[in-house]
């Protein structure tokens, strides 16, 4: 395959892209996608958030997962950076702290795909029984 060097190459590549249709279908169902937000303020970047985001993107592409990886700002958990927020449709968003590339892959495989609970969650919104009522 030739290397993509220009906008014209990009145009040609698009026509050859087998998954073009599935990519479009995915974007139409944005609300059904899992959303991973990597905190990328100064604290996150300095702690390695860029590597985590690159790892997640490669993983999502390799396994063709219905996941959108995006960036967020600092949530005040600078001590636990890199942090990522995982929002599975229909569930409360969960924030994981001290995420390196290995942890990121574990979160995708076990929490997102497998539905297991795993260590590393920063409790964000603790609700008492009264609050829930």
């Amino acid at each position, binding site marked *: 395959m030739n290397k*993509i060097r220009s*906008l014209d190459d990009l145009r040609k*590549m*698009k026509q050859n892209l087998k998954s073009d249709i599935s*990519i479009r279908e995915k*974007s139409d169902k944005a609300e059904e996608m899992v959303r991973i937000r990597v905190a990328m303020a100064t604290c996150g970047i*300095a702690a390695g958030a*860029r590597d985590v985001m690159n790892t997640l993107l490669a993983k999502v592409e390799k396994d063709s997962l219905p996941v*959108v990886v995006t960036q967020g700002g*600092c949530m005040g958990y600078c001590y636990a950076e890199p942090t990522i927020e995982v929002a599975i449709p229909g569930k409360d968003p969960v924030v994981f702290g001290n995420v390196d590339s290995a942890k990121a892959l574990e979160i995708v495989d076990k929490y997102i795909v497998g539905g297991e609970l795993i260590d590393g969650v920063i409790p964000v919104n603790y609700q008492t029984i009264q609050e829930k009522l």
Partner: protein
Amino acid sequence: MNDLAMHILDIVQNSISAGAKNIWIEVLVSVARDLLSISIRDDGKGMTPEMIAKVTDPYCTTRTTRKVGLGLPLFRQTAEQAGGSLSIESTLGVGTTVTANFGLNHIDRPPMGDLANAYVLLLGANPDINLILHYVTDENEFSVSTREINEALDGLPLNDPQVMRMIYEMVESNI
């Protein structure tokens, strides 16, 4: 911060927080002038002169989640330790330009890092902002923008990893 691409990732977040619609990342690499210059310009809400005077103070931040803001102070420190400087120009309601100059051959200048990767990560995470990369060397010049990429890809989502990899390859082969 291990490389200059990380600083770019970081400083562009300021422009995004300022509500910019267009963000220009300009990188000049001149062997002849022994200069590496990184300029991040936006059409966000801009700053008052008082704010400009304060932003490279680590104890200044607009956010409410914590009391320190290290993005610009770290960028300035990196520039100054590499024989350069950081300057900020801003007009309220018009936009802000942050420029950092480095001695290209200075022993303490961090490596550029993966500029194409920084561009694509920002592009994918902020598809609604027109992000322009302008890369200039003594011999060459390369320019690309979200708008042009969107036109070429005819509405394919820019946050799809496969699409991001294609864009990365395109940018990376030109810089």
